[in-house]
């Protein structure tokens, strides 16, 4: 019987299998940031053990950093101390840090790929659930907790049980105005926010193959939002073209050798999956979420569900979500005024995302009642935005362009949405209070977010595409 892509990569990384227990899995690359690492460093220091393989670790400051005036000391004391702690830990343990002010600083899941640190066939972890992003390159990549960060720092290994495997095939051509974010929001709406728990998901099919690396990253990024530990896509020429020539990508003869290995990374034709789901790309409309988990999404012209026929438990949950969001069952979101638009996060802050936004807003101006914030995913993305003159388009439209960081995706720094106000956001979570206490988040693609910025209401972007 053939093997799946996950099995091929997994088996090459098993140091030892424990009977009736997990595998000891070797980790190729470890990304760290300021929020989930300090207790891990404290842990290894308490045990008196060094960082096992510092050259396989890269650090950046992203979750907790301001997106204005990054050249100045961080004003908020606790945030400043946390970032200083990261700097100190990296210096003490010989870890490369792309901190504030560095040309490579940015959201950990944006910089890994753009530096070529992320490569096919690798095992990659980070103390962040959106580590699944790196699966877009055909890698086993998943988020871990701080105790596990400590394990990887100390030993470059983790104890992991082999996941169940799901394949999601998206076949056909995408409709006008439908992009990668809509595909993944559609999938999560179909299978629910817990529908892939315990699984690694391989995305396949012609609609997936047609996506750029940025689009594939958007898809894999949100795997965790349906509960999956990770998501991945078999590498192909699109992947190899993206990786080649990047800072940490193999060069010369080493490149040729790696490329030959990478070309073997696909699920065999007779490989078995525990579950397989087929989706017709033509069924997908521009998507938007109305509720307080990413599974509560609808097509832009759709209606909120009615709760009449649901079980007591489900009814309780949906009613709680509607109450929090200030929405009623059966209603549509289209035409509803919004007060904020946030374009950024590890889901949608790459250059392609920002080009997409620029295409919509070029020659237009934002609605007066909306505040629009664009936060590029990294310093390199920001530099590219300037090089292409997109910043001029955004400024002319009345958008505020900030500096790189996680920003209003998780509301750890001062970039927050006020209580009760609506934000169309290109980020990944619409949980209660995620973008600030009481904030109401509507998740959507960069196109749909750009459309809302221009009109001031929830809009079907196809009406602006002409």
């Amino acid at each position: 019987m053939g093997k799946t892509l996950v099995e091929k990569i997994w088996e090459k990384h098993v140091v030892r299998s424990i009977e009736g227990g997990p595998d000891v899995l070797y980790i190729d690359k470890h990304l760290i940031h300021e929020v989930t690492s300090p207790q891990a460093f404290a842990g290894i220091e308490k045990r008196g053990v060094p960082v096992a393989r510092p050259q396989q670790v890269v650090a950046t400051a992203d979750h907790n950093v301001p997106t204005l005036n990054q050249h100045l000391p961080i004003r908020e004391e606790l945030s400043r101390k946390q970032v200083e702690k990261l700097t100190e830990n990296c210096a003490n343990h010989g870890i490369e840090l792309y901190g504030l002010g560095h040309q490579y600083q940015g959201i950990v899941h944006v910089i890994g790929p753009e530096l070529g640190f992320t490569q096919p066939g690798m095992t990659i972890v980070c103390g962040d659930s959106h580590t699944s992003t790196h699966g877009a390159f055909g890698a086993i990549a998943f988020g871990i907790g701080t105790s596990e960060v400590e394990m990887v720092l100390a030993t470059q290994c983790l104890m992991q049980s082999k996941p169940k495997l799901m394949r999601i095939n998206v076949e056909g051509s995408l409709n006008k105005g439908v992009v990668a974010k809509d595909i993944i929001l559609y999938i999560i709406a179909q299978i629910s926010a817990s529908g892939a728990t315990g699984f690694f998901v391989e995305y396949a099919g012609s609609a997936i193959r047609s996506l750029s690396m940025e689009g594939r990253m958007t898809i894999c990024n949100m795997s965790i939002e349906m509960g999956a530990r990770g998501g991945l896509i078999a590498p192909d020429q699109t992947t190899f073209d993206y990786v080649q020539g990047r800072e940490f990508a193999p060069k010369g003869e080493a490149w040729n050798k790696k490329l030959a290995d990478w070309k073997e990374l696909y699920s065999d034709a007779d490989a078995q999956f525990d579950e397989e789901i087929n989706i017709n790309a033509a069924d997908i409309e521009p998507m938007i979420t109305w509720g307080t988990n990413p599974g509560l999404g609808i097509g832009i012209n759709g209606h909120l569900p009615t709760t009449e026929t649901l079980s007591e438990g489900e009814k309780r949950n949906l009613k709680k979500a509607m109450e929090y969001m200030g929405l009623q069952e059966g209603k549509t979101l289209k035409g509803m005024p919004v007060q904020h638009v946030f374009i950024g996060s590890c889901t949608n802050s790459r250059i392609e995302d920002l080009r997409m936004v620029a295409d919509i807003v070029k020659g237009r101006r934002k609605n007066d009642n909306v505040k629009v914030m664009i936060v590029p995913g990294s310093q390199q993305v920001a530099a590219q935005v300037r090089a292409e003159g997109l910043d001029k388009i955004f400024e002319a439209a009345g958008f505020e362009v900030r500096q790189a960081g996680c920003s209003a995706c998780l509301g750890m720094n001062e970039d927050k949405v006020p209580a009760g106000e609506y934000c169309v956001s290109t980020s990944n979570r619409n949980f209660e209070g995620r973008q600030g206490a009481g904030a109401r988040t509507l998740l959507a693609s960069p196109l749909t977010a750009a459309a809302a910025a221009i009109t001031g209401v929830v809009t079907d972007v196809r009406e602006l595409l002409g």
Partner: protein
Amino acid sequence: MQPIQVVKSRFVPLPLEQVDTDQIIPARFLKATTRDGFGKNLFRDWRYENDDETKPKQDFVLNNPLYGGEILVAGKNFGCGSSREHAAWAVLDYGFKVVVSSFFADIFKNNALNNGVLPVQVSDAFLEQIFEQGPEATLTIDLAAQTITIDATGAQENFDINNYKKTCLLNGYDDIDYLLSMKEDIAAFETARG
């Protein structure tokens, strides 16, 4: 890590589904650089009006003096969302040793196990039976036997846990001790793969 063997206690019911880690511990409390003190911010925004500790929300179960104990019982998909281990630290620091649900998110489950908090997954029907009990009712969780019992009715279910993790919890061992003991095997693995 404190070992867990048998926990017999009253429980705190939270009959909500999809309780995500942003609710368990909101992001603004993740700025600490130590593992201590997260319990006071557990479910912070469900617990207090406008983030004000002098204004507890009376309808939230942690503010109801009738309920208490070392066991938290919640609806399905508990702990979904962010990988923040601070969620497990907050649950533990508040005083819970066991979380019962009909479904756990993966990363939370691992984080809990790595901190000596036992996630006990039960059927939907058994979960409903627990929610039907009053505030004086107790549950007994026996890790060695892998059973959970509603003491008043005697209703019992078995729960799954992998043998390795079970041994760790029963003895208070953690994974790092095990991995550190494998140092030479790890180096040999690296050499072999080139």
